[in-house]
């Protein structure tokens, strides 16, 4: 009991300490010993650990005798068998894409909360071109990209020309997109499953039946992993993420988009076309989400359902982007990580509900907000140690005298 008290006291003291130290500007406090990259990775890892501990705590409350088993399943299911790992990769492909969509927009100063609409339109373009026009998979992915780009362009356009906040346009066009896709699907008999012999009127046809060439190839990996889930989608996503990294950090184009995101006036002053930059940022962001839709529905595993709820996948991009620090390379990791523990979460059934994983992810995201605190603490410690050293030296000198 006393220990716990001590712990809290110590914690409170630390908190207060950091709280008081807010006079220091964080951007200024960059210590050579703790490069920003290093400490943000540390912070992310710490968040993950805290999130998992919290999850364990929750499992303990719900069912103490099974909590150990639960935690173990969360942690190892993803690599317990090849087919489980295949599932991780399968889920991470669209997740990385929507994460990239949100993260890319963040980097260029925009909040794309419309990834779900762009993803939906992308999915529709992919399925339409694949089923109705018989496109092969790569062409269907390009179609998905075009669809997403188109849907992303709209909020960009409204922002650039009418000064409408992209958040509101994105939200509105999420719904418009979904309803539009429903409408288009319903009026394209060929895209619906019952055209191909099924008895279901509210979902799209199976690609295996309608156009096998539109299924993303597996290159034998399905045999290797012994799972239908395995395909090359995740490699495409990783490749695109790397491209995005290069574009953002190594090209003049990325330089322009970021400049416009940080300071629109300055970018205009510097001769850049800010309207074009805003629209292009949204187009790219939308295209990424659209590809996500393509990558998911062209696996031949899922069918698009005519429903009245927004697809969750687009919104899932936000936590992926945030956990990955909006950095494309970070997003690869966070996308894979989130699907990894989600696969672990499914294995919690039937003892626990799989929603516990969502709670854990939420806690991890929340804890990553603490990264600043962790950074400050780390840097403070390092600085203090340095100072102590100096003091020591001085004392030593004085003693000599």
């Amino acid at each position, binding site marked *: 009991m006393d220990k716990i008290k001590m712990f809290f006291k110590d914690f409170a003291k630390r908190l207060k300490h950091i709280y008081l130290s807010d006079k220091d500007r964080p951007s200024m406090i960059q210590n050579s010993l703790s490069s920003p990259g290093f400490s943000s990775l540390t912070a992310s890892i710490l968040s993950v650990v805290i999130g998992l501990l919290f999850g364990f705590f929750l499992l303990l409350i719900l069912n103490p005798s099974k909590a150990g088993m639960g935690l173990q399943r969360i942690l190892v299911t993803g690599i317990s068998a090849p087919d489980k790992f295949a599932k991780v990769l399968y889920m991470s492909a669209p997740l990385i894409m929507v994460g990239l969509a949100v993260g890319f927009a963040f980097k260029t100063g925009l909040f794309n909360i419309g990834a779900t609409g762009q993803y939906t339109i992308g999915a529709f373009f992919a399925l339409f071109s694949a089923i109705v026009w018989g496109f092969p998979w790569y062409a269907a992915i390009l179609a998905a990209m075009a669809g997403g780009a188109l849907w992303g362009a709209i909020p960009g356009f409204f922002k650039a020309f009418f000064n*409408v906040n992209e*958040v*509101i346009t994105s939200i*509105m*066009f999420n719904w418009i997109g979904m309803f539009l896709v429903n409408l288009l699907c319903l009026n394209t008999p060929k895209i619906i499953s019952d055209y191909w012999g099924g008895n279901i009127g509210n979902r799209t046809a199976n690609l295996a039946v309608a156009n096998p060439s539109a299924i993303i190839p597996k290159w034998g990996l399905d045999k290797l992993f012994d799972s239908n889930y395995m395909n090359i989608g995740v490699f495409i996503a990783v490749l695109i993420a790397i491209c995005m990294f290069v574009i953002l950090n190594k090209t003049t184009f990325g330089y322009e988009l970021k400049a416009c995101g940080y300071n629109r006036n300055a970018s205009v002053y510097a001769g850049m076309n800010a309207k074009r930059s805003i629209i292009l940022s949204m187009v790219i962001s939308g295209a990424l989400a659209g590809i996500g839709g393509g990558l998911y529905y062209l696996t031949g595993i899922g069918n698009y359902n005519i429903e009245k709820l*927004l697809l969750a996948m687009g919104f899932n991009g936000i936590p992926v982007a945030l956990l990955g620090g909006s950095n494309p390379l970070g997003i690869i990791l966070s996308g894979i990580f989130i699907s990894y523990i989600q696969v672990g979460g499914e294995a919690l059934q039937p003892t626990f509900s799989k929603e516990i*994983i969502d709670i854990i992810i939420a*806690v991890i*995201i929340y804890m990553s907000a603490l990264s600043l605190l962790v950074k400050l603490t780390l840097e403070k410690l390092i600085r203090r140690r340095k100072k102590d050293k100096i003091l020591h030296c001085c004392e030593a000198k004085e003693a000599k005298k």
Partner: protein
Amino acid sequence: MNIFADVLGLTILFAVPLILVAMGGMCSERSGIVNIALEGIMVIGALISCIFLSMVNASGWGIAHPQSAVMLAILISAASGTIYAMFLAFASVNLKADQTIGGTALNMLAPAFAIVLSWALQGQGQTTIFIPNWVRITPQQFGVPADEALNFFERMFINKFFLTTPVAILLFAIITIVLYKTKFGLRLRACGEHPQAADSVGVSVYGMRYAGVALSGMLAGVGGLAFTLAVGGGFQSSVAGYGFLALAVMIFGNWKPLRIFGAAFLFAVFKVIAPMASSIPFLPTFSGIKGGEYLYLMLPYLVTMIVLAFTSKKSRAPKAEGIPYDKGSR
């Protein structure tokens, strides 16, 4: 004629949660904190108050004192929303975290928590929390004889009536007055525009921001309950994107109470007309098109965009929103 009374009546019913939650968002953003967690806060407010309602229903107390129970449920939804919102305040005020991070975490957490909690309370797999019948105030309770047909205004105002409606109107009025007429409101707005200025005259920016977020939690919590009552039946761990719609309504309303009020009504009226279109005589039915209803369902969103295109040139968010307050920065 009845159908028009219905349209207006339902518009009020569905505008109420939008107004509440958008006003909540406004309070928070006016203090400088972007609150995208509205959706999650609504879920929590609805969850806790619906659990309360179903508990007092089970105990029999509810049916004996229906409107006191609903009033308590409203208070509980406000309290739980406020507490939940404090997580956002802590992350974005004290920790100076990116405000979307806290918001996103809360949005993810809320429905998952709702499922886990309602299962823990109601048994595994039992997600729906049913709302007892007695929460509605019937026209009879207003003194309309049971066998008498309702007139236009009765249909419009009291046919489908919950205590949340007058509470919402009251809250709207209070918040509007507080924002513009009190020193609290002045300070709150100052913190969202120029926190350094507020700080330099002795206003506690942290305190004001906490207050703004707390208000948003309170309003969004009540909004969650109001939405669940309006939809009817039961709570199923979700508020179907209304939190985000409220965010949109807030932007649409340009962060100003009266405009938010108008925006919410405009949006709600089209949202209500959409499903009712087939029963409104003069509206086209698009019978040649499969799923013509979707054309109507798009309507509220399209109308919003059209209005925005014409009105947004001057739209202006609180200047300091989204930026963690740092005493030292100038």
